[in-house]
């Protein structure tokens, strides 16, 4: 093995918000019966956080659990831990109907941070980003302009965005363009 490489190592832009490619993040898609005790227990155990509510994201550092669908979770972890966690889940859920698969490398992660962060995102996604409607603890699976993406907030003005690895450059360019200092909307 050599040093794993993210899609756009070190990419950064500063405008109305700071845009940074964060490097690789461990991500596991876990599909199954989210009300099953076994599944809940292993999800909590490997992530160290509580099961999220509908559209919820419980994030603690690099770890977290995100609600993706009524039968799907996204488990976040340090990149190198993902294979081990998949093995742990396989062991715990053996004999039940579930799917746990490492998707860490299929993704790119960006952080959008700063005063203008909500506006930058609101130029690209139809999701309601009003502070009364969206804040830390929630996730949205939506789109940024023409590609699928998901995001959550780790602070009052900090977003983490997940998109597919192949479109990392497009998403970085989109975010940087939307964060141009001359294009502030002054809305939120």
């Amino acid at each position, binding site marked *: 093995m*050599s040093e794993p490489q*993210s899609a756009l190592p070190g990419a950064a832009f500063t405008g109305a918000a700071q845009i940074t490619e964060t490097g690789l993040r461990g991500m596991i898609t876990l599909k199954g019966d989210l009300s099953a005790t076994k599944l809940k227990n292993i999800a909590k155990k490997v992530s160290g956080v509580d099961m999220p509510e509908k559209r919820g994201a419980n994030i603690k550092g690099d770890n977290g659990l995100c609600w993706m669908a009524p039968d799907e979770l996204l488990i976040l972890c340090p990149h190198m831990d993902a294979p081990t966690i998949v093995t742990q889940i396989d062991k715990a859920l053996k004999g039940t*109907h579930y799917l746990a698969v490492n998707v860490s490398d299929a993704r790119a992660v960006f952080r959008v941070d700063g005063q203008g962060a909500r506006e930058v995102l609101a130029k690209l996604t139809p999701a*309601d980003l009003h502070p009364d409607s969206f804040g830390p603890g929630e996730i949205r699976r939506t789109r940024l*302009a023409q590609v699928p993406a998901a995001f959550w907030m780790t602070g009052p003005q900090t977003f983490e965005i997940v998109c597919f*690895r*192949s479109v990392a450059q497009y998403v970085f360019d989109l975010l940087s363009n939307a964060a141009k200092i001359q294009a502030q909307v002054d*809305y939120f």
Partner: protein
Amino acid sequence: MSKRLAAGGRLIDRAIPLDFTFNNKRMHGYEGDTLGSALLANGQVLVGRSFKYHRPRGIIASGAEEPNGLVNLGSGRTLEPNQRVTTTELFEGLRAESQNHWPSLEFDIGAINTHLSRFLPAGFYYKMFMWPPVFWKYVYEPFIRASAGLGRAPNARDADTYEHFNTTVDVLVIGGGIAGLQAAKAAGENGARVLLVEQTAHWGGRAPVDGAVIGGKPADAWIEDTITDLEAMDNVHIRTRTMGAGVYDHGYVLAHERISDHDPREDRPRHRLWRIRAGQVITATGAIERPLSFAGNDLPGVMLASAVRDYAVNYGVSTGDRAVIVTNNDDAYRTALALHEAGTTVKAVLDARTQAAGRLPDKVRALGIRVETGTGIAKVKGVARVDGVALCAQSGNGSVTEELSCDTVAMSGGWSPVVHLWSHCGGKLLWDADRAMFRPDPDKAPTGADGAGFVHAAGAANGEMSTGAALADAHRAAAAAMGKKLRTKASTAEDEEEMPLEPVWLMPQGAGDALRSKTWLDFQNDVKVTDVQLAAQEGYESVEHTKRYTTLGMATDQGKTSNINGLAILSKSLGADIPNVGTTTFRPPYTPISMGAIAGEARGKIFQPLRRTPLHDWHDRNGAHWEPVGHWRRPYAFPRDGETVEQAVSREVKNAREAVGLLDASTLGKIIVKGPDAGRFLDMMYTNMMSNLAPGKCRYGLMCSENGFLIDDGVVARIDDDTWLCHTTTGGADSIHAHMEEWLQTEWWDWKVFTANVTEQYAQIAVVGPEARAMLEGMGGMDLSAEALPFMQWREGKIGDFDAHVFRISFSGELSFEIAVPASQGRAFWDALIKEGAIYDAMPYGTEALHVLRAEKGFIMIGDETDGTVIPQDLGLNWAISKKKEDFLGKRAQERSHMTDPGRWKLVGLETVDGSVLQDGAYAIADGRNANGQRNTQGRVTSTYYSPTLGRGIAMGLVLNGPDRMDEVISFTRIGGEPQKARIVGPVFYDPEGEKQNV
């Protein structure tokens, strides 16, 4: 002569002069002017030529309804045609040019059309140019194209930037007049999340010009106070220069913000398209004054009465020295008062009503201004602008009773509520006969998902024309939008009592043909009263048909000033009531919005997402000649110095056949299917059996739609007891995953199957060629011998230091390993392969070599051999269609008579007799001709290449009875040349026994 008055102008700042040019003539205006007010201030009354007859035209309005004042704005990369002077804010250095004239605005040769007008009646396109057919192309169309039309399309790349902005609100208020302000304030104070948008740069609409007094204060003061209140509320956001453009289903509304049109010097986006999800919408869009229909009403100097007073009060501009006002209502008397105040002579107010007894007419009389009742205009005198008017009795046929000289005619035919946004999503209208207007029918609002109305009209847009009534109505609309009784109260106003108007659709009532043929309805598209009457005579009854036949209301102003007058004329001609004739459909956008705003950020490098594999940068640095495959970019070939692309392809093909080739196959779709019912599910998805595949083994499979057509193919690998990995085509990754999910979620929702698209988790590299095994073994790691990893099996292990899934599958006919490593390791793995490969003459190959290699082997390609009409049986793939399975998607469809027709074209190989290459898509020619006189065909080419391996052209194609016609020579079309002869052969040109791949 129009001019700037010595004083006045509530919207302009005389301390900030601005210079601009019109037709290269330097002119001067002030900050706060519109281009329209500045042109008038510079005495420029003539602003354009009409669409059809090239008649001289002047500004008639002061807002979004203006039909005539359209200019080319800017130049080169900032040129934009059809910009409305009345909504274009003046800025320093603005450049405008008038449109539709040649050689000059003042002298226009096309104006001769006006004398030909009797040859250009309603429907002239359809009537005159039917015969002979060639005349249309060579005579009529060039003439029409040259003489009709407005602005010129720009041909340079747009210099500006644009963007979108999404927001979700409880209540969206469209229109920032007093009704909109009142509604936003009421909704805001009662806790709603509110967005208020106003299309102009100013709040308050007409109220200040019309002298409204609200809550004991002048309107300006009330507006200022209300804005202060709105700005203080966190839950309320207000925006000027933002037009509500369209209302759509589910409360989706588009608004168009003009960010920097008024000040283009800064590097801001030009326009922003607001994509608003509104719980409730309040349309406080005001009303538009109607012109009156009298002869010569299109001459420059004839204006709407409201516009004449807007120019005086808002911009300190006099539209002329001597005005005549013609009206059917009390409101126009306000113009007489405003002009008198501004020092302009009002020669007379001509009131078509038999009496004018209201307080406003009394005030006007008290100033010594002559008021004539029962009187109208027989015709306007003048050639290029108004010189005077001929008076007549409204009830007569136009006998002239008197002539008055004047240079301005201010007309008012009453007001039409702006019902456009109410109507976009299905809101219906009522005809209010007392006030002669269509207004929103509150019982038939546009409805949302819950069946309840989600649009509420307020104020003048709802037919409430007086200040106090508009404010009360706006408060009511806010309460309706919020679905509750509000604890706030509407502001109140002292309304001046007004007497009812009298509908006047033609002036004078009995005007003869000579007058009617000079009476304009649609100024922009040159539609006259006689055109609509002619349409009615010719049998047009539907207002929608009449619109299209006469082009009434079809110009860029969408008939804002003409629609009601036009349909009133139509209804009269048909002897029907106005509500029975109805209006045409109101469609978004309310006024034109820029194409740039619609595109938003999507231009240049972010026009479209471009998908990159983990090896993209390497390919780019190593001379890849790119090919778009879906949104991916894939290397077509890697030409070396001095090599053509074709030469590179040949080299890459030969090298894979003789040494070893490396292919970036990362784009291939990879879908995990897992669960106790996964085998059963895959047996339904694929035509062949997948449930009995043993773990560790691979099988090629075909997928069909439920109509039996082949939609995708690929190799399926069994991972473990309840897990399969399905490879799809590059283009099929997302659609096949969606296809699987659709069947799982809608049809077999009770089957225990989970899927996951893991396409991008892996970098997948095909190592292909006789030296492939030796080369990989040289890197160390897992056992890749034929015994340990036989053909059509897969293993997990290590290649060198890399964790890998190795699939022994071949799309080239050579010994081949497809190796998947985590994407984050992809580039390092590729570098290691390149390094190790140096010893074995390994080189990368692109998609064209991939195609040639597969075609030499007779492997089909989805998208080449298939086009959505091809079934596997057409391609001789019956071996991959299970006969044992009870069912699979497409099975029953493939049993339909047409699918089993022996006459379906079937796949064969094709070898040209002379070794040349057939043209892609060429047709096999058959004897005789069809009913259209075209040659009959008996097949077509689906793939065609030059084969470097065989040194000749090879092709595959679908041919009638092809498999039964081996060795027959048939002819194929060649564009620009004689047909090519080709021999029908088997589709496998290379290693038909398959010995090379299975070693």
